[in-house]
């Protein structure tokens, strides 16, 4: 996390920060950095910004590349940094920041190159079931899954579903989509595509991965998932 130090920090904390800055990302450096905090901590805990920097230092020293996963995946973007900080503070993002991040994410959405939003719901169901890909025990050839059932209910016949996200059973039906090709359905079709491509465009600190934006799923896979949610023939809408 790269939150800038606040101007209100104490002189002791400032000293601690410079101690960290001087240190390199090695085991010894972390020990030194922690020790610097101990001095600060004698009176009280170091300030929040200083702790952020120590955390950053510890993360760099603790994680290493393994298999297909490189340490640079931890150098995350502003959206994640601000959402993490809000979680630590236990306060949601202020309205203006949230809107700004949503705008930022909205701009990243790539709409279907051929204008076709709906693919094959049968393929979509397979993608929704699949939770594999992008861990260090996967190889580069692993086809990434959508992880959908980990958090959402979709086809009612599948009992093994998670509840971190809302149930998506009857997703299209509830939203009145009887013919996705009908112009009336256009807004809902586009929203569904956008939500899968980059969920943070609609809710800055959503727990949902940004499947298209982060390259987890390709355009065709997103198309198939849109079909799973909106095709009237899909088991989701039965």
């Amino acid at each position, binding site marked *: 996390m790269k939150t800038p130090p606040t101007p209100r920090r104490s002189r002791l904390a400032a000293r601690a920060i410079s101690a960290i800055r001087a240190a390199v990302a090695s085991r010894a450096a972390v020990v030194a950095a922690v020790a610097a905090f101990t001095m600060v901590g004698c009176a009280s805990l170091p300030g929040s910004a200083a702790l952020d920097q120590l955390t950053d230092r510890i993360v760099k020293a603790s994680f290493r590349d393994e298999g297909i996963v490189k340490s640079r995946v931890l150098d995350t973007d502003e959206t994640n940094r601000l959402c993490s900080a809000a979680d630590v503070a236990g306060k949601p993002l202020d309205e203006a920041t949230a809107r700004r991040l949503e705008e930022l994410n909205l701009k990243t959405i790539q709409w279907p190159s051929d204008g076709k939003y709906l693919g094959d719901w049968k393929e979509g169901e397979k993608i929704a*079931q*699949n*939770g*594999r*890909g992008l*861990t260090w025990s996967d190889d580069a050839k692993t086809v990434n*899954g959508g*992880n959908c*059932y*980990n958090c959402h209910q979709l086809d009612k016949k599948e*009992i*093994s579903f*998670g509840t971190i996200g809302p149930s998506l059973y009857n997703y299209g039906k509830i939203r009145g989509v009887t013919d996705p090709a009908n112009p009336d359905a256009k807004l809902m079709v586009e929203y569904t595509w956008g939500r899968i491509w980059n969920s943070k465009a609609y809710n800055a600190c959503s727990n949902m991965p940004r499947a298209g934006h982060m390259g987890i799923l390709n355009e065709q896979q997103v198309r198939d998932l849109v079909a799973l949610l909106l095709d009237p023939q899909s088991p989701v809408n039965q």
Partner: protein
Amino acid sequence: MQTRRDLLKRSAIVAGLLAGTGLFPQYALAYNKGAFEAKSVADVLKALGAGAPTESKEVTISGPDIAENGAVVPLTASTTIAGVKQMLILVEKNPAALVARYDVTDSVEANFATRSKMGQSSDVYAVAITADGKAFFAKKEVKVTLGGCGG
């Protein structure tokens, strides 16, 4: 004191000697390889020299309705039928159906619990075999599902 196993071991040695001459049948071996390689419940019983099984309320198979993980499925086989000599635990849809075979002596109750791997949802069986080769069974369905995140 001679135990059944001692006797079987001896006959196994004898069988081994005779096998060399091609004159002795394989069933005399202590560990019934054929029974453990048989695909179906019926073939297992055939390999053990038992007759066609009859469903019986005096035989019980207990296990979970749903096993969160097929690697470990607790199964218990028991019976109240008198004169039972062998108890079997079977999983119908495993590559080989027979999981375990227990000799019932006068010193133990005909009640055995063990844990089995299951490759998929299947009926599981408890079979009690009497001294005269009659087989009685109970079965129940165990569904196997994935509990975790599937990745």
